[in-house]
C-alpha cells in the first residue's frame, strides 16, 4: 500500500528515469535474436510461399475455369495473407492480374490464317467488284453465322439456365468457320488481302468464342471469356466490314440492283446510323453526368 501510494504521488516526476533505466538495461539483449528473426522472415521465404501457392493452384486446377479460378484465388490470397498482405490494393491487383491472365488466355483470339493463305489477284475494278460480290455471297450463304443467332443462343441459355439452346451452337460456329474458309478461298485483290485475312481470322475467333460460350451453364467463367472474345471480335468485325464498304464506295465500284455487292452501301449506311446512335448515347451520358454534378454541387 505504501509503495502504491508513493508511486501514485511521484509517478509523473520519475517517468523519464524509468524509461531510461529500462532502455539502458534492456539494450543488452542478445542481438543474435534479431538476426535470426530477420532471417526467418526473409523475402525468399515469402517468395517460396507464393511459389507454393502457384504449384498448389496448378495441382488443383480442373478443366472448369470457374472452379480453377476460385481455387487459385483462395490459395493466392492465403499466401498473401500469410505475408500480412491481401487487403491492400497492390496485392489484390497482382493476384487478380494472375487470375485475369487465366481467363485472358482463353479469350484471346488466336489468328489462324496468314497472308500466305490467300490467293491474291491484281488490283482492278473488276477484281474489287468480284471480291465484294464474293464476300457478300459468302456472308449471306452461311445463314447460321450471324450475330443475332449467337446472341439468341447465349441469351436464351442464360435466361432459361439451360443448355438446350447450345445444341445450335455447333451449327453456328461451324458456319463461322465455313465462312472464314470461303473468304480465304476467294480470289482477293492484293490491296484487300490483309482485309480478307483479318475477316477470316475474326470469323474463326467468333467460332472459337462460340465454343467457349457453349460452356456457359456449367462453367460460366469460360462462357464469360467466350462472350468477351465474341464481343470484342464482333465489334472489330463490324468496323472492319464498314471500312471495307467505305473502301468499295470510294473506289467507285458500282453494283447492279439485286447484285450481292449492292448490300455494301446499305451496310455502310446502317453502320453510320448506329454510330450516330452511339454518339447520341454518349452525349446523353455526358449530359446525365453534368446534371448529376450540378445537383451534387447544389446540394453542397
Amino acid at each position: 500500500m505504501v509503495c502504491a501510494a508513493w508511486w501514485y504521488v511521484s509517478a509523473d516526476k520519475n517517468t523519464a528515469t524509468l524509461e531510461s533505466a529500462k532502455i539502458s538495461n534492456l539494450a543488452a539483449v542478445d542481438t543474435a535474436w534479431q538476426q535470426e528473426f530477420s532471417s526467418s522472415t526473409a523475402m525468399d521465404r515469402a517468395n517460396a510461399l507464393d511459389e507454393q501457392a502457384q504449384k498448389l493452384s496448378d495441382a488443383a486446377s480442373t478443366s472448369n475455369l470457374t472452379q480453377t479460378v476460385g481455387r487459385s484465388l483462395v490459395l493466392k490470397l492465403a499466401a498473401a495473407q500469410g505475408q500480412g498482405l491481401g487487403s491492400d490494393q497492390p496485392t489484390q491487383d497482382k493476384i487478380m492480374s494472375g487470375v485475369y491472365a487465366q481467363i485472358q488466355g482463353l479469350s484471346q483470339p488466336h489468328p489462324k490464317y496468314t497472308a500466305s493463305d490467300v490467293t491474291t489477284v491484281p488490283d482492278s475494278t473488276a477484281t474489287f467488284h468480284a471480291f465484294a460480290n464474293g464476300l457478300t455471297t459468302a456472308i449471306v450463304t452461311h445463314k447460321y453465322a450471324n450475330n443475332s443467332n449467337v446472341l439468341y443462343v447465349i441469351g436464351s441459355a442464360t435466361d432459361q439456365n439451360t443448355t438446350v439452346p447450345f445444341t445450335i451452337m455447333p451449327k453456328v460456329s461451324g458456319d463461322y468457320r465455313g465462312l472464314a474458309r470461303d473468304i480465304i478461298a476467294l480470289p482477293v485483290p492484293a490491296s484487300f488481302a490483309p482485309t480478307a485475312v483479318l475477316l477470316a481470322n475474326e470469323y474463326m475467333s467468333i467460332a472459337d468464342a462460340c465454343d467457349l460460350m457453349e460452356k456457359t451453364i456449367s462453367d460460366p467463367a469460360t462462357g464469360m471469356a467466350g462472350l468477351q472474345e465474341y464481343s470484342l471480335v464482333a465489334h472489330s468485325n463490324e468496323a472492319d466490314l464498314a471500312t471495307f464498304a467505305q473502301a468499295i464506295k470510294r473506289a467507285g465500284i458500282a453494283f447492279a440492283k439485286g447484285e450481292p455487292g449492292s448490300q455494301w452501301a446499305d451496310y455502310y449506311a446502317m453502320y453510320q446510323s448506329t454510330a450516330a446512335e452511339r454518339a447520341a448515347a454518349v452525349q446523353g451520358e455526358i449530359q446525365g453526368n453534368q446534371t448529376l454534378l450540378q445537383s451534387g454541387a447544389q446540394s453542397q
Partner: protein
Amino acid sequence: MYTFFSKHGIQQIIAGALLLVYTILITGIPLEAYAAGQAPVTGQSQNLGIPNMKNSGTSATAPFSMNQNAPAVTLGTGVVSCLVGATLTLTSSLTSSAAAGFGIGTTLTNFGNAIVSWVQDLISGKTTSVDTSNERNTRSSAAGAGAQTGQAYNAGANTIANNTSMGALLAGREEGMLGCIARTIARAILQQIAISTINWINSGFNGSPSFVPNYQTFFQNAADYAAGAFIQGTDFAFLCSPFQLQIRIAIAKSYAGYSRTPSCSLTGVTNNVNAFMNRFDQGGWQAFVSFTTTPTNNPFGGFLYMQGMIQGKMADAAGKKRNDLSMGSGFLSTTQSQNCQHYTAQQMLDKGGVDMAGKSQAWDTDGSNGQTVCDEVQVTPGRAIGDSLSNATKTGQDELINAKYFDEIINALVTQLMTNMLQGGLSSMSAGSGYGSNSYGSTNYSQLRNSVSNSIPGYIQNAQQIIAAEQQNIAVASSSMAVITAQEACWMNIVNSCQVGATTTIRTLTNGTIVTTTTGYAPADCATAAQNASSTMQTNLAQAVQQLQGIIDQASSTIDSLNAFQAQLTTTPDTNPTALGQLITMFSQNVSNGVYPDNGAVNNVLEAQTVVQGQLAQLQQNSTSSTTACLAIKPQSTTSTTTPNAPVPRSN
C-alpha cells in the same frame, strides 16, 4: 468506347467472388462485430475494414445508380429475359434499316415456348416464325416486307448487316442484350465460384493426391508468415517502447522454437528482467510498481500477452484454414432441432406414440414423463456458408439487376460482394438463428446445450438396451447353471461313491453256503466320473454371470449418471457459460472415451448376446446329455459263494 469488358471489370468479378470466400476462410473477420446487429452499409467497405477491391481504373469506380423499378433478370426463371429486354433496341435499330430487309423483326413475347420451338426448328433446319403480335413487332412490321411476314432470323433474308449488326445490338447501351447476358453470366460466375470453392474445401480438396499432402505444409507456412507479419506489425503499439523490441524478439524467438527447435525465449526475457532487477537503483520503487502493476508494462506480462495474441493469430491463419474450415471432417457437423413439439404423457398416450425416425426427444426433468420431440436436421458450417452465400447473393442480385452500364455491373458485383455478402452474409451466420449459430464466431452454448441434452435420452436408451440384453443373458445362463450343476452333482456322486469304498458286501447263508454279494461302481466308471465331475464349467459360468451383472450395474450407473447430468445441464443457465462449457466439455470427453454407450456398443452387445446364448444352449444340451449318461451308470454287483468246512465232532 464500347469495350465490353474492361480488364478491371473481369478482375473485379472474380476478385469479388473470391474475396467472399477468402474472407470467410482466411481473414477471420471477427463475427462478433457483425453479431452486434450492425446493419450492412453499402459503399462503405473501406471504413469497415473490408479490403478495397475498387480499382483505380476509370470504369469501375463510379457509383452505379439504383433503379428499383428496373426489370428483374433472374437466371433460370425466364420471367424476364435478356432477349425480350433487348429486343426493343434490336428491333428498333434493325427496322431503321428496313431497306436491307432485316429478318430479326420479332419479339419473343411468349419467350418460354417460342424459344423451344425455335431451337427445335433450327436444329431441323426449318424456317421458323416466332410470335409477331405485339407492339414492338408492329413497328417492325411496318418497316419492311421481311418483318411483316415474320421471317426467321436465322435464314432467309440473311444479309451483311444481319450478320454483323453488333451496333444495333448494342446501340441502346443501357439495356443492351450483351449487357444483360453478361450480367446474368457474371452472377452465375459469382455463385459458382463461391459454391464450388466451398464444396471443394468441404470435400477435403476432392482428395486430390497431389494436393492434400501439400496443403498442410502450405497453410503451416501461411501461419508462419502470419506470425512473422504480426511480429513485425503494429500490434505492439500498446507496449511501452522500451520493451517493444525485446518482446518482439522474444516472441520471434519463441515462435521460431515453436516451429523448429526448442528454445527458451522466456528465459531470455527473464534475463532482461533480471538485469533491471539487479540494478534496482536504476528505477527504484517507481519502476518496481510500474513494472508489476501493469501487465503489458513489463516483459513478463507483455510477453505472455503477446504470445496469447500470436497464438490467436496463428489459429486464424492456420486453424481457420485447415481445421475449422478446410477439410470436410474439420467442419463440425452438428444437429439442429427444428419443429419442436412438447407432449405431455397423456397426450403421447392419446396420440399412440410418435414415430421417432429422424427425431430427437428430450424428457421433461420434472418427472412428469412429458417430452419434447424435435426434427433433427444435420447441419454443417459448410452448409451454413452455402446458405448464407445464397442469401447474400440473392440480396446482391438487386444491384446487378439495376446496374445501367456494364462497367457498373462489374462495380455492382464488387460492391455487393464487399458489403452485402461480407457483412450481411457473415452477420447472418453469426446471428444465432438458423444455420448461422454454428461453430463460427462466439460459442453458442444454448445450441450446444440443446445438442447435448437431446443426445442424452439416446444414450440412456442404449444403456437400457444393454441392460435388457445382459439380463436375458443372465437368465439363460442361470438356466444353464441348473443343468450344469445337476450334471456335475451326478458325476460327483459317483466319484464320491468310488472314493468312499466302492463296494457294499452282503453275505447270506444258503444251504450251508455263504453267498457274498458285492455292489459298487466299476473302476472304469469311476474313472469316467472323475473326468466329468470337474466343476470348472460351473465356476466359469458363475464368473460369466458375474461379469454380465457387472455390465448391468455399470449400465445402470451410466443411466443414473446421465439423468443426473441432464438435471445439472438443465439447471445451469446460459448466463453461466463457464459452468455450461465445463459440463459440455465433460460430456464430450465422456462420449469420446466411450463412457456413454453409443449405438455401436449396443450392437456389440446384441451380437455378443447371440453368440453367448448359442453357446449356453449348446452347453445345456451337452450337460443334459452328460447327466443322462451319468444317471445311466449304475453300481455293479458281483456274487461269490463260500462253502464252510464240515463241523468237527467234539471229542469228549
